């Protein structure tokens, strides 16, 4: 089984992405702090089983609150096989520092630009290919509330496991 942790700042859509991936339901709101503990759900992609973990929001590896400590513990002690760093595409510059920290752990990291619709609405254009090339990690775009891009994410998750075990 492959362990996947959804991590990122508060209020970027981790829970709604979790709901879309697992078809389970965890509460989703438009304010930080809705998730205070870990929710887990199992899914099958093609022939492989994945455990998806929804985590409370965290800003960096230096936690201030208990909820951030919970998330860090997942990364540090459960050694997930894949980390999906979910970020609000509008606030790329504030959220990428955590991506760098996640990459330092040498775990597999996928950068997930979420809420891409709102970014496009204000006229932002993001060059995903360039980000991918510079960071050397997969970068994908999603709109988790509407389920857009979830299939791409599933494909990437599957792809990473085949590389991983090869």
């Amino acid at each position: 089984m492959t362990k996947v942790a959804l991590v990122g700042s508060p209020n970027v859509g981790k829970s709604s992405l979790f709901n879309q991936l697992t078809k389970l339901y965890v509460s989703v709101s438009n304010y930080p702090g809705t998730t205070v503990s870990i929710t887990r759900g199992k899914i099958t992609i093609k022939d492989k089983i994945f455990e998806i973990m929804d985590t409370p929001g965290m800003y960096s590896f230096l936690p201030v609150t208990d909820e951030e400590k919970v998330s860090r513990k997942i990364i540090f002690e459960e050694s997930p096989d894949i980390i999906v760093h979910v970020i609000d595409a509008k606030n790329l510059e504030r959220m990428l520092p955590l991506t760098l920290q996640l990459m330092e752990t040498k775990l597999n990291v996928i950068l997930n630009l979420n809420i891409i619709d709102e970014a496009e609405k204000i006229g932002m254009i993001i060059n995903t290919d360039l980000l991918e090339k510079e960071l050397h990690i997969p970068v994908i775009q999603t709109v988790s509330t509407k389920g857009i891009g979830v299939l791409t994410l599933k494909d990437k998750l599957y792809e990473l496991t085949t590389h991983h075990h090869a």
Partner: protein
Amino acid sequence: MSSPHTTTLNYLDTPICEAVLKITELLKASYKISKNTLALLLLQEDPYTQALVKEKEEKNYTHIQEVVSNLSKQYSEPLRYVISMNRQKTVDVLVSQSVTVPKSSSFMISNFLNRLMIHPLTGYPILALVLYYGLYQFVGVFGSGTIVEFIEGTLFETYINPWVTSFFQALIPWAVIQELFVGEYGIFTLGIRYAVAIVLPVVGTFFIAFSIIEDTGYLPRLALLLDRSFKYIGLNGRAVIPMVLGLGCDTMATMVTRILETKREKVIATLLLALAIPCSAQLGLILALLAKSPHALLMWGGVVMGEFFLIGYLAAKILPGTQPQFFMELPPLRLPMLSNVMTKTYSRIQWYFMEVLPLFIVASLLIWVGQITGLFQWLINALKPVVLAIGLPAEAAIAVLFGFFRRDYGAAGLYDLQTKNLLTPNQLAIASITLTLFLPCIAQFLIMKKERGLKTTLWMTAFIFGAAFGTGYLLNQVLELLRIHL
């Protein structure tokens, strides 16, 4: 994992990179996380990592500390700051290459609204509007007035109750067993009727209103607005979120106090939630109880709010420490999505219903056993002096006893008394205030114990009992003395 990758670290200043390399070589034990990450956290003096490494490395730990202090001597700012500036610089370069942002954004309307919500002059009137329409009109007047009257008054009283009662009377010949199901406190006539006819409409409308407010992104703005007033009670704006959530369910909100930074804040917030924040079921029932006597409603609001700030203020004075600086991400204002509002409301109602219905049924069962054994009557008699002391009629002892199970159960009991016209507005106000200040339910007690420990919880509970009845008593005396009739 023995050879450190420098590929992911090449954005750092050379001296930092070298220090990381030195530390990773000194880390001999095996860890679940990469040594680069550990080394960087050690440089940033993270207490968790320091404790972990100190335990695993013993001798090498002093060498590691040397590396850290040597490096920090090279910088005038703390390493924490230097490293995060390194990262930010890299990110800024990356973003400038890969992202194009338009010069002017179309955020005009939401920017304007945003400012109105945060500014005290306009923010408080907006809050009043949200409370008046969202809470009072929708939940109080529509939910617990119109809908409850229809389900309770029309459906249950005229159709369902007589039918079920005659059904059970025909089915079971023994009066004692009939009592269990359809008697005055029967599982059906009391437990299920309370849950379906009184609590469900109230909680349902509340959760609809609340889900809509939640999804717009109004709450973080409310947090900013209230930040300054919360300072007086030892909390900052961050605590607004659990407090507002408490209006939905105090038990849930007690868990959310995890988002607060210090132990002191958590203790104050937990106490205030248990004492002075009415949960949705209570709130709706109290609005329904007091809707016809506006003065009593004002008095209830004034006393509960006063108690909230007074106890918060005193707690902040007694507990040592200062509150941390407040900063919170402001999510954009969004139009709520109908599907999300519906699923969220549904899942909350379902959760709530599954939680209260068994309790209500068990309560009926306990009362039934209590009646047969005489214990119920004994408890009520024991409570009567307390009830009389706060100026309520002896009949209210039952509602107070219910209140021990759950505050909303007690409020539903009061609702029954009120429809029989047994309470004056004064008594209504006092009873509502006392019940509001009570600990909400057994579930909350258990969560408090889990989050804050048994000792703190017992202290808080004892205090809350005293405060609830003490306030009721004092209030009754004051009203009597001044001959005020609401």
